């Protein structure tokens, strides 16, 4: 686990300079005042003049700093800001109002940086289009440096990148940086895979370019398991790459390319296995690569399957926790072989449905 627990909503935040009791007392004082303001603003909805007074707003901000999980208070702010912005026409003043909201969020995040309400409010404020998106990217860089796998942060970053219209080719560089900092970062790998999909699905992206991109990714991710073969994040990403590679089958020139990639990757895994004969992930990935290879290349089917079988058998003792899974794979292999022996008589083409990449 990556060790940054979310604060439980009910849990009192651990304030830096205050006694928890002082917090409770202040909270008790603010609560009725807020509820009073909140009631007044409901009255407003049915036509009575509302008072989103500065004082009420300050109280509300303080309340959210004390307890950022208080959703009603965030909603109150949204209504208030909408109303205040509705009255204000000066652009600078409007920007100032938005900035004040961002500051309130920052104070809430200081107390609990995994507060859904606060992040949601921030998105909402950015959606008003009154704030600098570059400033948000700087903020995120800092946050994700301190907590590289804060998924609120990653989620918010995707939102900003999308709002700003940053091309995926550019956005991907940030994931490279984060992975270089620490490659055991699922969030960064995941974000990378999403961005790569986006690039390859873009209209007009040439197939050679997608192929070259995937090859670069294989080279990149290989560094992770040569550095630490026990780290799962790189292997997961590798599996995803393999899926993407297979998905290209059928496009012009891809079949030859696929065999070339598979040969190269099988070789790399074998090399690593020579250095790390007991590496579970290497064995498992190699077995999968071999089976994929087998399903596209009938001439080596027998030797590929035999080698894969050996690896699964060894995995049974190497990783007894997942023994059942490996045995299931072995039984699948046996039944497939039976079918194939028969189907080879009718030379029926086999698809790649036997790939089960997710463990």
């Amino acid at each position, binding site marked *: *686990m*990556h*060790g*940054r*627990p*979310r604060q*439980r909503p009910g849990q009192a935040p651990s304030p830096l*300079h205050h006694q928890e009791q002082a917090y409770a007392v202040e909270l008790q004082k603010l609560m009725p005042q807020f509820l009073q303001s909140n009631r007044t603003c409901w009255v407003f909805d049915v036509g009575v003049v509302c008072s989103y007074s500065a004082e009420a707003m*300050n109280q509300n901000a303080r309340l959210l700093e004390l307890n950022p999980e208080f959703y009603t208070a965030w909603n109150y702010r949204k209504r208030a800001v909408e109303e205040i912005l509705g009255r204000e026409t000066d652009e600078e003043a409007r920007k100032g109002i938005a*900035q004040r909201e*961002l*500051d309130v969020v*920052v104070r809430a995040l200081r107390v609990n940086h*995994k507060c859904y309400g606060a992040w949601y409010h921030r998105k909402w404020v950015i959606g008003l289009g009154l704030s*600098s998106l*570059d*400033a948000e990217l*700087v903020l995120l860089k800092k946050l994700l440096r*301190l*907590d590289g796998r804060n*998924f609120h942060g990653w989620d918010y970053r995707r939102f900003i990148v999308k709002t700003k219209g940053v091309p995926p080719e550019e956005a991907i560089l940030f994931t490279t940086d984060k992975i270089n900092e620490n490659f055991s970062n699922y969030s960064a790998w995941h974000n990378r895979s999403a961005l790569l999909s986006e690039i390859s699905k873009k209209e007009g992206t040439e197939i050679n370019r997608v192929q070259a991109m995937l090859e670069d990714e294989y080279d990149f991710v290989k560094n992770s398991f040569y550095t630490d073969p026990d780290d799962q994040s790189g292997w997961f990403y590798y599996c995803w790459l393999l899926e993407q590679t297979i998905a290209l089958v059928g496009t012009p020139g891809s079949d030859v390319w696929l065999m070339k990639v598979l040969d190269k990757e099988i070789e790399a895994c074998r090399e690593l296995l020579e250095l790390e004969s007991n590496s579970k992930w290497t064995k498992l990935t190699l077995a999968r690569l071999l089976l994929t290879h087998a399903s596209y290349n009938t001439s080596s089917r027998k030797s590929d399957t035999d080698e894969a079988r050996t690896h699964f058998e060894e995995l049974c003792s190497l990783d007894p926790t997942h023994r059942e899974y490996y045995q299931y794979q072995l039984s699948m292999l046996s039944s497939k072989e039976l079918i194939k022996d028969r189907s080879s008589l009718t030379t029926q083409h086999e698809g790649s449905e036997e790939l089960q990449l997710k463990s």
Partner: protein
Amino acid sequence: MSARKRTLLKVIILGDSGVGKTSLMNQYVNKKFSNQYKATIGADFLTKEVQVEDRLVTMQIWDTAGQERFQSLGVAFYRGADCCVLVYDVNVMKSFDNLDNWREEFLIQASPSDPENFPFVVLGNKVDVDGGNSRVVSEKKAKAWCAAKGGIPYFETSAKEDFNVDAAFQCIAKNALKNETEEEIYLPDTIDVNASRVPKASGCEC
């Protein structure tokens, strides 16, 4: 990008030994006064949260730790100060005369980027002593000195009677905050070596 919201202000208090620097701090922060004089021991700095206009700021008030006695404060002590408070004893002429030296010392050591406009605040302490009868520095004289140095705010205080102490520190906080704009643009990332501030591993609950 918005201005960096720095909430921590470093304030240092200078002045001759025995003018009441520690007493002023203690009165302001802890609301305590002790008649017993001892050269300062034990206090590195005291912190207090203050509301300045619409902002809540933490003031870190640094004591001289007795190193002022033989003018043995090092440059490291002066670094990064947002406001410098100069204290003298209205009953001791020499402590007033030395304000010049303390101001000079500060400007040389801290070398602020804009020495002309660096915020100082002067406090004339111990106005309570002997009902004001033993006083040797007049308010007029002190104010004239402050005016000559570019209009330094001046307060007459008594740490013992808690006279004017809050008002003085409120002004100190306000002036310290003014100075802040100077450094907003570039703050290098530095590393805090206190291990207790370093995140520790625990379960993840997204």
